[in-house]
């Protein structure tokens, strides 16, 4: 770039160096150029103005006072291998112990962070509780048959358990060879607890609770597959040993009620068993065996 005096304009860095009194190879040329070039005079003035606040740095150095560094202490630290007490360790100490005003950003972030942490803790607690509940075995409810129970054991609790209100919706008449009339009840509105699929189907004697003069013998089933058709087998002795089958439909709760009418006091009921023939393989219930007290005159208790 050519100046008005014919020479090249010096760079700003050269002008600044000239302004600061630095040794330059072309100091004389710059000085002469400045005499004639108004543009460079203006640049020179601007640089002087812009750098003038920095002169205060040299004034500051005159006013700064510091405690004397102890050469003896430094030498002692050297002898001790004072690298351990470096700037970073002392800074760490000072950083921890320095009282700081709480930053607005920290204040802003702290509430959502606290809420998030609380939410996370609650989630963890819920997950742990859910996991714990699934891995701890729940003791069986009274009256519910377990798979390990013998068919021939008395099941008074089971009898007490199944006491649905009889609301006959379906009546299945026995065949001519049948010695009893069955009234099958499906009770969708049953208040009983829905059966668990993993419990074994069972039958029990509900006669004491549901029996009536017309239907003194009542067989209750539970833990069957809802909607399945179950065959209740009656093992009887009436002059000879006979087997009568009655089909009943399991309600939505996995239960059924089989009402039996005794048509002759000469019939001796030996046992009952229910088979879910729809299931593959066929699922058998427990067996209700004859109760010596059962009969036309006695209470028809059966052991299941």
């Amino acid at each position, binding site marked *: 770039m050519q100046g008005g005096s014919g020479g090249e304009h010096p760079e700003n860095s050269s002008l600044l160096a000239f302004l600061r009194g630095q040794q330059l190879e072309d100091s004389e040329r710059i000085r002469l150029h400045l005499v004639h070039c108004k543009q460079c005079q203006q640049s020179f003035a601007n640089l002087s103005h812009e750098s*003038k606040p920095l002169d205060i*740095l040299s*004034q500051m150095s005159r006013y*700064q006072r510091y405690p004397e560094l102890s050469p003896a202490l430094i030498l002692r*630290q050297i002898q001790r291998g004072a690298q351990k007490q470096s*700037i970073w360790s002392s800074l760490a100490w000072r950083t921890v112990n320095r009282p700081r005003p709480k930053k607005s950003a920290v204040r802003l972030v702290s509430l959502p962070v606290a809420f998030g942490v609380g939410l996370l803790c609650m989630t963890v607690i819920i997950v742990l509780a859910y996991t714990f509940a699934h891995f701890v075995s729940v003791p069986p409810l009274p009256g519910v048959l377990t798979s390990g129970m013998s068919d021939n054991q008395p099941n008074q609790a089971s009898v007490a358990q199944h006491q649905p209100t009889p609301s006959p919706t379906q009546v299945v008449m026995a065949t001519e060879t049948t010695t009893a009339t069955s009234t099958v009840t499906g009770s969708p509105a049953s208040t009983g607890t829905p059966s668990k699929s993993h419990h074994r189907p069972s039958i029990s004697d509900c006669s004491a609770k549901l029996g009536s003069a017309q239907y003194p013998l009542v067989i209750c089933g539970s833990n069957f597959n809802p909607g399945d058709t179950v065959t209740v087998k009656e093992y009887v002795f009436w002059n000879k040993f006979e087997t009568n089958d009655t089909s009943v439909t399991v309600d939505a709760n996995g239960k059924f009620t089989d009402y039996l009418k005794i048509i002759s006091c000469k019939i001796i009921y030996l046992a009952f068993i229910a088979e879910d023939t729809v299931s593959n393989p066929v699922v058998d219930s427990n067996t209700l065996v004859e109760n010596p007290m059962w009969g036309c005159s006695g209470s028809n208790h059966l052991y299941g």
Partner: protein
Amino acid sequence: MTDEQVVERLRARDAQTFCALIERLQHPLTGYLHRLVGDREVALDLAQDTFLQVYKEIGKTSGDLSLDAWIYRIATNYGLRYLNRKRLKQFIRLESQEGINESLATAGPEEQAETRILVHQALDRMNPKDAAVLQLHFGNGFNYEEIGQILKVSSEAVRKRVARGVDKFRALYGQAPAVDTPAAEAQLIASQESARLGAQFIAPGEVVPKRDGR
């Protein structure tokens, strides 16, 4: 005693020479570090570390060592390392920068307190290397050749770096001060109060003729 003699004695682990060196350099060196890092206590620690390093490393230097330049190089490296870590910490923690160290605001006539704060704020927002060059030249009075020895660069490079630093400083000094902490705000208010009492200031944006009166 020449530099060469001092270096020879230091290499011989002469404690008296080392003490004399500390007495001669501790104030300008600590002041330089103070202005560079903006923290008086840190500057004292860094100065002490610098002299420790001098004592430990003097035996590894060559014979034609420029002693003061070498010591300032060590101090500059310590200061820049500290600033880099500090800025990294501030970035990680998303913290705002701390206020101006009070000792810098009071290092001089009261009427120039605001200027000192503004100058330091501008330098604090610059690249630390550029700020170090300006501190060495304007604060400690090193010429370009000496700064070249300290930073291990040529005088030409120093000339360009000083010009670049002044250019950046001008841009930052003209901006509104970053008063983002209560401490800095309080210092600024105190400075403005003292200004109303009749002090003269080098205010940013003023034109040269108006400022010639000081």
